[in-house]
């Protein structure tokens, strides 16, 4: 079996040649070591630009919303789950999309690598299955990829895309090595004051750039509540009350929809622990409804439907 990357290229070429899609959305090598960048291929001669490796972090499902025409998309498991949510929420037409699913062992978190390099800048990097070698002025280091995966990849339970048209690469065995909600449990064990301090410190860093919202495929509202002015729900300043309102409401708005792809955390220029909110919300939804979003095209969004036996302890 050839590499997933070669399979992606092969499928992309065929889909374009046969006119099945107008564009393939995938990843290409970025301009900075260990970064990939979204890539839109319209010409079969350009499929060689497409790559697949552990740098393919951005959730490409983002680009399917509001798109017209037949589109092929390279989707790792969490991207595919976002696409499923988009389809069940009637934002994406299933028949307009050809999903090239890719089983994924996790993407690397550049911030974690930067942290161990202590200020040394990576000028060159290469990767194989489980190693990342980085080179810079006067240093060369080989790192174990596993130690530098994104937090959302470490706790990932769905490495295989639940829905796809074509699978590039072999299905992976799902792992349950660690407790998915370990970090959340640690936060829950803290006193309210400690938790408040944690959230104040983290959300206090927010610069309101909205990178978290804008890279999130499920933040597709035509007008986000923070941008609404009549009435104005949330102040636009960087005061803690405003940044908290923004992040808490966003987390609630993606409750039962967030697939924990981690794109928001990777995009945040201030390294805010955004998953402390979103993963907690995911946990609540799991506990209340035993539901995980983005796994089935048949299941309607859990907070979009009502059933007689829905938990209602909160109604006092």
């Amino acid at each position, binding site marked *: 079996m050839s590499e997933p990357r070669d399979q992606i290229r092969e499928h992309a070429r065929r889909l374009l040649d046969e006119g099945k899609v107008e564009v393939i959305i995938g990843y290409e090598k*970025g*301009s*900075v070591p260990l*970064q*990939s*960048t*979204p*890539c*839109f291929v319209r010409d079969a001669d350009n499929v060689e630009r497409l790559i697949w490796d552990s740098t393919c972090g*951005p959730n490409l499902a*983002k*680009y399917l919303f509001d798109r017209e025409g037949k589109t092929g998309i390279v989707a790792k498991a969490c991207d595919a789950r976002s696409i499923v949510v988009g389809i069940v929420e009637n934002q994406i037409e299933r028949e307009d999309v050809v999903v090239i699913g890719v089983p994924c062992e996790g993407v690397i978190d550049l911030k974690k690598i*930067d*942290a161990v*390099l*202590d*200020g040394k*800048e990576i*000028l060159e990097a290469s990767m194989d299955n489980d190693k990342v070698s980085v080179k810079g002025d006067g240093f060369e280091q080989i790192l174990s990829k596993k130690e530098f995966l994104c937090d959302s990849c470490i706790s990932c339970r769905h490495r295989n895309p639940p829905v796809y048209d074509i699978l590039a690469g072999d299905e992976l065995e799902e792992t349950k090595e660690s407790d998915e909600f370990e970090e959340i449990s640690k936060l829950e064990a803290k006193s309210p004051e400690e938790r408040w301090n944690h959230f104040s*410190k983290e959300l206090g*860093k927010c*610069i*309101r*750039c*909205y*990178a978290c*919202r*804008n*890279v999130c495929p499920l933040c597709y509202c035509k*007008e986000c509540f923070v*941008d609404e002015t009549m009435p104005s729900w949330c*102040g*636009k*300043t*960087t*005061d803690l009350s405003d940044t908290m309102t923004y992040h808490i409401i966003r987390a609630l708005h993606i409750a039962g929809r967030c697939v924990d792809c981690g*794109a928001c955390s*990777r*995009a945040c*220029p*201030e*390294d805010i622990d955004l998953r402390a909110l979103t993963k907690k919300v995911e946990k609540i939804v799991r506990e209340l409804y035993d539901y995980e979003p983005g796994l089935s095209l048949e299941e309607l969004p859990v907070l979009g439907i009502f059933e007689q036996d829905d938990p209602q302890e909160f109604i006092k």
Partner: protein
Amino acid sequence: MILRSSSNRSVVLKMKEKTIEKKDLSGFIDSLLEEYQVFAPTIAEGIPRFDRISSSTQVSLDSPKLERSPKEVFFPQCETLFTYQLIDGKMTMEEPPALESERVLLFVRPCDVKALTLMDSVFTSWEPKDTNYLDKREKTIIVGRACSRPWSTCFCTSLGVDPFGKEGMDLVFEDIGDKYVVEALTERGGKIIDGSSLFKDAEKKDLENLKEVSKKATEAIRSELDVKEIEKKLKAIYDDSFWGKVSEKCVGCGVCSYLCPVCHCFDVQDEGTELKGKRVRIWDACQYPIFTLHASGHNPRTSSRERIRQRMMHKFSYFIENFGELACVGCGRCIKGCPGNMDIREVLTGIMATEAD
């Protein structure tokens, strides 16, 4: 009026170079703190940025990544324009007080000082001047720092910025190993080192070292771009399909604008009730869809195509028309900050390579 050390009104002095041992730097900074409010590169919650310091121990000169631009020292992300209050049926408004004394901003890179002089153009070239910005700018002594360690994303030299340039600085520190060569460029800059025994006259050897270091740093900048006459090129390709392609991956967040040392767009908002509150200005960004949205619903820039084009046109064409300079200093912050790794160097190369269709 205090003399400002910007490009167009600088008082250029030729003073003899001094040196200071690196081990004496903290002593110098602490002596400054006795007299001035001092801002310097620090690390706050893992993010290197310019902030007010109370001790030399807070200064971080070897941050693990490029620090945030110092624009927030003059143009804070969120700034009160005035407060208001209704007292006994009478509405009173109060502006924040002007700075009482001079401040010192330490160790700013040449690209960032250049960026400040560009921001000066916007905020202070025509009436009415932006008094909030001007007050901070006029009362801040700029201590530059020659950039002996460029990052891989730096491309300042392609845009005419010299990593050892001194434009806009009052005083400059140039790292030559175990000491700094220090040069006062204005009287204000000279004033803060005058009388300090920590500074010695530079020796011939120090200046030779400096030449060597400066040459090495300039050579270390890897990116070379040709943006000659880019403003003409941009005009020619305004309607080109290039913009549709290049903007496709932009998700419309504000990272590039907020990290940019030159971007100066802002929004004005009221915080409070009709009885009491404040009017604030907050950074804003041209990549947000609502930036130009009219109350009527009409929007002259409906998609990322128009918005990316606006960003590039503003920096590389409109700014030249208005002020004769580019509104980009090649610091590369937007490159590493962009969640989609949109690289302004590639966009520029793409612009130069596009033949109008």
